[in-house]
């Protein structure tokens, strides 16, 4: 019979082994919530001093906060939840991280081994539930497997195309005893992610890039996750080519640089979308041509162009758009090699073609499609709040957002010059991430300015975290763009459903100032455009306070430019169109 429930000399419990593994991985924060199946683990956690546990108010927020910690630092985020409802509450957070390829390890408690499959109290098949939204998951069935499994979990989460890994651990396993030895490295014959790109392909790519007449560089979240921003800047400056970033890639290339043409996609700039559509050579880096980025793929492919695609994940290449030069490899290493080749290359980019191309781009730019009517002294424009936020924080804050119109305005009007500063749910589009994301950022960088740009719909999806922010003294600034509507839903209903605002009005809102104050925070109501800048300055001057800023904004403002669903990238509706809504109606036919 197995004697692992008898402690021998030198042995420690499964729960203690988990603590030692986290210590070996240099984990600084564990975001979690206790419960029955993880009581042994929490008892071991009580006795250790190596990392800090952040008690959230809902498991979803634990996973989001761990996810943001990872996005801001590049380290693996860690969350700890109990079995059953604790585990299922974590699923939205896990799926959010999976869609954006964020490295995370989520440890979930499970009912005791003998109770698995018995419909025990708080039992759920966590490995089954999370299978479609994790990079990998494990159910540990032997205390002696804990160390090697966690080692594998951290390795899988952080290597290759990163992603969340779930480790499900039955309660009895955490009480049994075993020797502890943390493996120094791990090798898996079934998992060998590529690192370096194929040098022949890289040479070919450089040659094609130098022959381009209308080149374009398009980078995504993969560039940020791969920490290849410096390599990209070097490459782009050497070549003098225009650069666009996706929503996930903002900050990958400095937004204030003259070669930057803005974000592309459904709400991208006129110049970025047109240049993307019109280019003859496209260099895609850590981006995946998704539906919100290139719109209708058939329309995109109706113009011939040569596409070079660098990605660490082969399955991202030629998934939606067939590419000509695939390069599978770590973006930092591949771009580095390209820079080395360019340094010794005698051929230079075609200066005259480039001049003509830039003139065309500058023509698109001159349309200035990010302008908005800010003439009213009575109604606050949401874009104006973001512009002022950018000024007051000197463009150097960590900005988290929720999902909707405010997210797009934050992406369009805050100028991100550094990677890992813009933290949002791009792939899954999870409302409610903003506040827990801000918590993860503020804990990672206690002295940094952290702003959570949100809407009154989203903020209420994890509003309970105001309490966590109080407990851990997190001086986050909430920038609530309150238009009393689920704005993006309302915008689509206005455009595509003849103004039938079905369930998109947010009635019965709380008094956000009183709500913030009840948690011991500072609350502010801002109702006039003239008060915006001063209020932001006051708020950010309160360096040790959590400030909840409720901006009452224009109820009817829409996000422009807009590429309607299923349309081509260059088929944008602009805010300056005399009647943007009619333009939409016409396009819809």
């Amino acid at each position, binding site marked *: 019979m197995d004697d692992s429930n008898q402690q021998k000399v030198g042995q420690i419990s499964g729960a203690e082994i988990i603590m030692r593994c986290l210590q070996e991985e240099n984990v600084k924060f564990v975001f979690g919530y206790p419960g029955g199946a993880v009581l042994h683990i929490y008892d071991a956690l009580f006795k250790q001093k190596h990392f800090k546990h952040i008690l959230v108010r809902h498991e979803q927020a634990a996973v989001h906060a761990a996810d943001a910690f990872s996005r801001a630092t590049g380290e693996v985020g860690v969350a700890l939840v109990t079995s059953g409802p604790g585990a299922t509450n974590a699923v939205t957070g896990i799926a959010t991280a999976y869609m954006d390829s964020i490295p995370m390890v989520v440890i979930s408690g499970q009912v005791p081994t003998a109770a698995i499959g018995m419909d025990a109290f708080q039992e759920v098949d966590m490995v089954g539930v999370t299978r*479609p939204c994790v990079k990998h998951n494990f159910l540990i069935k032997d205390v002696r497997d804990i160390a090697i499994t966690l080692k594998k979990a951290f390795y899988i989460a952080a290597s290759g195309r990163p992603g969340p890994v779930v480790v499900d651990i039955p309660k009895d396993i955490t009480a049994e005893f075993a020797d502890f030895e943390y493996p120094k490295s791990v090798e898996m*014959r079934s*998992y060998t992610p590529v690192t370096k790109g194929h040098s022949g392909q890289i040479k070919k790519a450089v040659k094609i890039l130098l022959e381009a007449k209308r080149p374009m560089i398009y980078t995504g979240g993969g560039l940020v996750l791969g920490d290849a921003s410096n390599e990209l800047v070097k490459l782009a400056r050497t070549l003098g080519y225009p650069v666009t970033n996706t929503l996930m890639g903002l900050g990958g290339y400095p937004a204030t640089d003259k070669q930057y043409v803005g974000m592309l996609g459904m709400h991208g700039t006129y110049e970025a979308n047109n240049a993307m559509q019109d280019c003859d050579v496209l260099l895609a880096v850590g981006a995946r041509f998704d539906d919100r980025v290139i719109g209708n793929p058939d329309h995109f492919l109706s113009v011939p162009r040569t596409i070079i695609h660098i990605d660490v994940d082969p399955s991202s290449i030629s998934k939606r758009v067939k590419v000509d030069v695939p390069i599978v490899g770590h973006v930092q290493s591949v771009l580095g090699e390209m820079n080395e080749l360019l340094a010794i290359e005698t051929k230079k980019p075609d200066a005259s073609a480039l001049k003509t191309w830039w003139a065309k781009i500058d023509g698109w730019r001159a349309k200035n499609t990010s302008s908005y009517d800010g003439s009213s002294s009575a109604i606050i424009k949401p874009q104006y709040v973001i512009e002022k936020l950018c000024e007051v924080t000197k463009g150097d804050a960590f900005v988290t957002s929720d999902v909707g119109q405010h997210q797009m305005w934050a992406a369009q009007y805050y100028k991100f010059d550094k990677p890992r500063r813009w933290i949002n749910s791009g792939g899954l589009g999870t409302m409610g991430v903003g506040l827990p994301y801000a918590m993860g950022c503020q804990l990672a960088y206690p002295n940094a300015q952290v702003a959570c740009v949100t809407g009154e719909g989203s903020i209420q999806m994890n509003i309970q975290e105001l309490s966590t922010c109080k407990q851990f003294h997190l001086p986050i600034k909430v920038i609530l763009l309150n238009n009393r509507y689920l704005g993006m839903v309302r915008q689509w209903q206005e455009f595509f459903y003849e103004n039938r605002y079905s369930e998109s009005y947010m009635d019965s809102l709380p008094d956000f100032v009183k709500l913030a104050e009840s948690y011991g925070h500072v609350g502010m109501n801002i109702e006039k455009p003239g008060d915006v800048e001063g209020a932001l300055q006051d708020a950010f001057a309160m360096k040790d306070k959590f400030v909840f800023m409720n901006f009452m904004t224009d109820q009817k403002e829409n996000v422009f430019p807009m590429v309607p669903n299923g349309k081509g990238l260059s088929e944008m509706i602009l805010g300056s169109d005399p009647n943007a809504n009619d333009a939409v109606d016409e396009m819809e036919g």
Partner: protein
Amino acid sequence: MKHIISLLMENEAGALSRVAGLFSARAYNIESLTVAPTEDATLSRMTIVTSGSDEVIEQIIKQLNKLVDVVKVLDLNDGRYIERELMLVKVKATGALREEMKRISDIFRGRIIDVADGSYTIELTGSGSKLDAFLEALDKTVILETVRTGASGIGRGDRILKV
């Protein structure tokens, strides 16, 4: 177009459901799927019969390779291969049918492996299309029950899928 994909994966609990889940989550066709451990008990070999355009098949191969438990993937259609499937058919065998069923079985090189008062059970091995042809040759009313294993495939000559 129909493709037969062979893969080797870690013989671990849940590995099969990862593959099956991938096909349903990404809406890939799955005609048949067979799996059993190999001579190396730490590995399972799976044969999947699927269909799709070249682009879809390329994605299927990439997505299968991406699964952490999958060690190697081979699209048998990329070269020459052999495909075999086993079918057991229980047919009516009364009166004149007793002789006729035996004759049809012989023509298809089947073997009668169980004989009862009113029925035979015929074992038949071959490609999927041969098994289809056998069923078509039978009068529908004489078929009492069928069971098929789904295809197994192996490359010809020195095309070997091994770790």
